[in-house]
């Protein structure tokens, strides 16, 4: 069983890295990029009986800092 966790800074939390990427895209001539938000993806290789609830607990305890980040879990 695999899980993929997407972690993003919450809306309203400044993302200076995303802003730098947006600026660089403009410099390269890509017009019309109104905003860039940069996050991270964590892939977990899990035991066959792993549950989404367990991955959510991992997110709450370690993978995400819920003060500033939101996350979504995809199981496959």
């Amino acid at each position, binding site marked *: 069983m695999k899980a993929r966790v997407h972690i993003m800074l919450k809306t309203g939390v400044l993302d200076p890295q995303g802003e730098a990427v947006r600026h660089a895209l403009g410099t390269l001539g890509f017009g019309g990029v109104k905003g860039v938000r940069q996050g991270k993806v964590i892939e977990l290789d899990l035991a066959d009986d792993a549950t989404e609830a367990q991955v959510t607990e991992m997110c709450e305890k370690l993978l995400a800092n819920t*003060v500033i980040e939101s996350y979504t879990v995809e199981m496959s």
Partner: protein
Amino acid sequence: MHAAVIVFPGSNCDRDLAVALESAGARVSMVWHKDTNLPEGIDLIAIPGGFSFGDYLRCGAIAANSPICRAVVAHGEKGGYVLGICNGFQVLTETGLLPGALLRNAGLKYICKPVELTVETTNSPYTERYSAGQTITVPIAHHDGNYHCDADTLAQLRGEDRVAFRYVNTPNGALDDIAGILSPNRRVLGMMPHPERMAEPAHGGSDGAAMFAGLVDDLVTA
């Protein structure tokens, strides 16, 4: 007064912090992150600056979940004194002993330079030797020092006089110019600037020394 300085892989201000505490009269034990217990009779836990665990995942996140940090949290929760400087501040927010989080600097650059701070409150063992509103010069050295918290937390920090230090000219985008904050019982302090790097004249200034002197004095007489 007996202080424990916690050492993680990647800590690099642990010895500086120990020297500053010892100069102020403390007895210091260095405690490795894999230890599960603190030495008997610890009065203060000091979490040093550096790059614990290479800043992997998030600054301070892995350290905050290391074995010794369970003892650190227990010490803080039962009313013990805890000081976190720079990466130590990041660790304290990750453990939840202090609210908020430290984001990437707004200008994206790692900044290493002396900065001016305003002492916002003298109502804490860390700041009682300063005068309210005093400007002190202490160096910063961080990439992720941009303090952030939600509006309710900020109102609480302000209302309870828990902002210990503010930047005179905020270098990193920190919310409300916050450089350091206190816990509700005022015994846990987290700050991004490094008072231990400005603690004796050979450092180029000694504005940080009063913090350690006040703290040690308080705990000796406690």
